[in-house]
């Protein structure tokens, strides 16, 4: 049984259908990259899996359990953690307080504040600093650490490299490689195709709310993904409603 199954997911923002009948599965320990142009529906899809958006149709299954109607805070307790786009840290709170908030759901596991600080050593001297005073890289590290503190089964990462300098992105991805090597299941939304293909096992390219291309990251070429990215190639695996 797949760890996460997304079945015919439809999400609307008012009259706009942001996600249109998307289906895919993620196996335990797998890293799935979601790529696509701005407005393709990647972030909406990720937030819908995390429970931040109501579904118009379809369902999300975690380890066989239907998450329909389960609010976002309970999904964290069931093992889904999202690192949202733009970090969305609690800027009035310190790094440590943000990390401890990740433990609210009470899932048992190995992650602790000290372990996060070991993974991101640059946060150690900033442990008691308010996150509003951190650099972009430190904020991203805190956001990832906060999600890990909930000991998730599935980690959803939304645009972790957005707004960061290349050097900081390298550091963040070096930390992610460690997570991937440890067997953490990850769904990664990324604009940088090279990075997405390099770290993932499988890639899904979205276009206008649908899956335009899906395949193994080692098998699909950058050219194919680029064509799908711009709508020059379609290979949908999900059922698309009329």
């Amino acid at each position: 049984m797949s760890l996460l199954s997304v079945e015919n997911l439809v999400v609307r923002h008012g009259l706009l259908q942001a996600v249109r009948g998307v289906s895919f599965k993620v196996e335990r320990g797998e890293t799935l990259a979601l790529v696509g142009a701005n407005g393709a529906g990647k972030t909406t899809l990720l937030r819908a899996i995390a429970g931040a958006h109501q579904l118009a149709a379809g369902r999300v299954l975690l380890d066989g359990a239907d998450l329909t109607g389960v609010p976002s805070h309970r999904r964290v307790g069931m093992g889904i953690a999202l690192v949202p786009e733009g970090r969305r840290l609690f800027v009035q709170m310190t790094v440590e307080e943000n990390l401890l908030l990740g433990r609210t759901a009470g899932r048992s596991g190995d992650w602790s504040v000290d372990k996060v600080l070991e993974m991101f050593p640059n946060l150690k001297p900033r442990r008691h600093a308010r996150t509003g005073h951190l650099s972009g890289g430190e904020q991203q590290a805190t956001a990832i650490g906060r999600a890990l503190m909930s000991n998730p089964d599935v980690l959803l990462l939304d645009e972790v490299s957005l707004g960061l300098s290349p050097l900081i992105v390298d550091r963040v991805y070096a930390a992610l490689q460690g997570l991937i090597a440890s067997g953490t299941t990850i769904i990664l939304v990324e604009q940088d195709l090279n990075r997405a293909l390099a770290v993932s096992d499988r890639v899904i390219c979205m276009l206008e709310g649908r899956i335009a291309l899906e395949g193994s990251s080692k098998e699909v070429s950058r050219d194919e993904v680029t064509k799908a990215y711009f709508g020059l190639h379609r290979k949908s695996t999900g059922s698309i409603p009329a």
Partner: protein
Amino acid sequence: MSNQIIQGILLGGYYALIACGLSFMFSVMRIINLAHGSLAIFAAYVLWLLASRFHVSPFLGLLIVLPLMAAIGWALQRFLLERSARGGALLPILTTFGLAIVIDNMLFEQFGADTRSLAPYIGSLSYDSWEWPGSIYVGKLAVIMFATAVILLGGLQLFLTRTRLGRSIRATSEDPDTAGLVGVDARRANAIAAAIAMVTVGLAGAFLGMRATFDPYAGAPQLLFAFEAAVIGGAGSLWGTLIGGIVLALAQTVGAQVHPQGFLIGGHAVFLVVLFVRLSTSGLGLRGLLRLPSRSAS
């Protein structure tokens, strides 16, 4: 003059108590509870009822009233304020305004227009005092009120910074959507915050009843004092509420020295000056006025 300053500081403890709940509810749920004063008067009436009918000391009566107020706060948030907040920022204000009218008139119908006080039920505490050097007399009740305010504010500060639930409440106040994404049940956090706020309202109502008289329509002036103290101190800070209460009380004390009717005018004048300064330095709007951080994260 030093006597007046000490009395003013001690009175500030009461204002901090009454302002604390108003400030707390606004900073967490962004709701201005116009029924705040009426709920304090309601608590005072329940204590009076327990004392006059069942001979329960008001201090012992708090063991019943404070959990009752917590339950009222929780229910208010869950069944009234949460729903009205979905209709925009104005609706909760109108809702609590309506609630204040309902409470005031319910109390009037039940207890009539007579003024009541809890002072007869606390023995000599209502008028006893300590004599300090320099012929300064400090009321024991006033000292208890001030100490209660300091302990309450300190306790709340510790609760908010050192406990998981406190952090959840702070996270919810800053960004309720993201709080949900890290595992915080924002509805529960808001309901608990409302319960805590109502406990502070219950305490304030008890001390109001002990130090003065009250009637069914005494809630509005208490709301005004609470609002003034919260604005002067800045609603984002618990200790700011204590400072706001002390500044308000000192201004009233100084006002009373200047003119026999200057007690209220002194407080209002300082409030208006602070209001003017806040509006001109922080930009227009309630957020700037109350010195609150933005909800949005980085």
